[in-house]
């Protein structure tokens, strides 16, 4: 059999597989809409769309920050800023006009928040996966992210458990930019970061590739859809902690000693289906969307697994836990705090970005020391 014949046979074999993937995703959305409610089906679809966007267009957070720091390549960071700007242009008027129905990612700036963001920035460079990135990478079969993910969830649960205490160490009142003035300040702030990134950029790298522009536009559309459907911005970390809280309660744990998990709103969610929790649904969608793309691609899942030293796997477990723990203290990860915080006017999103970017410098130095840059 010639190479051309083999390729044709492989393409023919891929068609039923791809049809099955699409039909499977549509059936899941339809079943959830039917048995849970249309809102939940739509949120799963939004999550799938985000996962597909990330994986197919190679959009991300941790990788572009690394590229900016190590090689002064700003394209990925600029695409993130573009997506945030697009969301803010729509979200600010929506939030101003519908204050009860819709809420932003508003959180207080505090010592634990800043420290948490710094640690998150370092940990996300160690495993090269942020909140959304860990989900997407796990779905596409990255073994480091797959191992990090459960510890991310445990860390999120533990961080939330003592969140009230950590916040009591010192925090400002919640500071939020709003209205037209707030939108102008937000867009100006994003433009300043973009200008700094462009000024520092290596010559010849000062443009955003078309695929990243498309990804930014799609991501912004999905983020706005998330806000309109659920009433809250796109987030990741809360849902992961909720999975562990639910498992802990099922195993007989008593969460009444946690001010966070015993609060009526959270206690109610622990006793409801995860398929009715906004961030859980989009998280599951991100994993599923990334899997769809990886399975869709010719040879997308045939990449051999990396051979890493034992210390790399230990570091992955620790970094995974720290990702979850620190992002709860920081009131969100790159999604809930940076992307959604900035795009809905919360000043903690800006502080999160500065602290996490500083932490990324440390994480980039730690990654080779911990043996995570070995390849097959």
């Amino acid at each position, binding site marked *: 059999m010639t190479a051309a014949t083999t390729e044709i046979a492989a393409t023919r074999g891929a068609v039923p597989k791809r049809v099955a993937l699409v039909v499977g995703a549509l059936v899941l959305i339809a079943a959830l809409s039917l048995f*849970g409610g249309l809102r939940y089906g739509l949120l799963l679809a939004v999550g799938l769309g985000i996962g597909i966007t990330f994986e197919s267009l190679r959009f991300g957070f941790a990788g572009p920050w690394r590229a900016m720091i190590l090689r002064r390549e700003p394209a990925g960071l600029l695409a993130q800023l573009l997506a945030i700007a697009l969301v803010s242009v729509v979200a600010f008027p929506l939030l101003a006009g519908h204050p009860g129905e819709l809420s932003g990612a508003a959180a207080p700036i505090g010592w634990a928040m800043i420290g948490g963001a710094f640690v998150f920035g370092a940990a996300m460079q160690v495993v090269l996966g942020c909140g959304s990135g860990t989900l997407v990478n796990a779905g596409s079969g990255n073994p480091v992210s797959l191992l990090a993910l459960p510890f991310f969830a445990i860390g999120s649960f533990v961080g939330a458990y003592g969140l009230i205490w950590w916040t009591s160490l010192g925090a400002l009142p919640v500071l939020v930019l709003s209205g037209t003035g707030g939108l102008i300040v937000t867009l100006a702030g994003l433009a300043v970061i973009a200008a700094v990134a462009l000024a520092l950029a290596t010559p010849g790298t000062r443009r955003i590739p078309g695929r990243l522009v498309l990804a930014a536009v799609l991501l912004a559309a999905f983020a706005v859809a998330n806000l309109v459907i659920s009433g809250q911005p796109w987030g990741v970390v809360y849902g992961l902690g909720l999975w562990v809280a639910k498992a802990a309660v099922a195993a007989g744990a008593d969460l009444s000693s946690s001010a966070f998990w015993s609060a009526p709103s959270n206690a109610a969610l622990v006793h409801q289906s995860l398929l009715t929790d906004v961030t859980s649904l989009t998280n599951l969608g991100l994993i599923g969307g990334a899997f769809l793309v990886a399975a869709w691609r010719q040879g997308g899942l045939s990449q051999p697994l990396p051979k890493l030293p034992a210390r790399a796997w230990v570091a992955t477990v620790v970094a995974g836990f720290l990702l979850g723990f620190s992002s709860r203290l920081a009131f*969100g990860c790159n999604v*809930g705090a940076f992307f959604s915080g900035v795009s809905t006017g919360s000043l903690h999103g800006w502080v999160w970005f500065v602290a996490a970017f500083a932490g990324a410098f440390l994480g980039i130095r730690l990654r080779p020391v911990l043996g995570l840059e070995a390849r097959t």
Partner: protein
Amino acid sequence: MTRRFTAGLCMALVALLILFDQAETPLNPYHAPPAFAFGSGQVVTGGFCAALPQ
């Protein structure tokens, strides 16, 4: 070993999570909220990373 194994393992774990969840707390279509929070007139109550409990 390839990513086929780890991606499959990931999806199996997700399926287990959903099965566990549905065994503990089945969905109830009669408690479904409006399809869109926007325009529903209802106050948003979902859990979110940035929200401190009241």
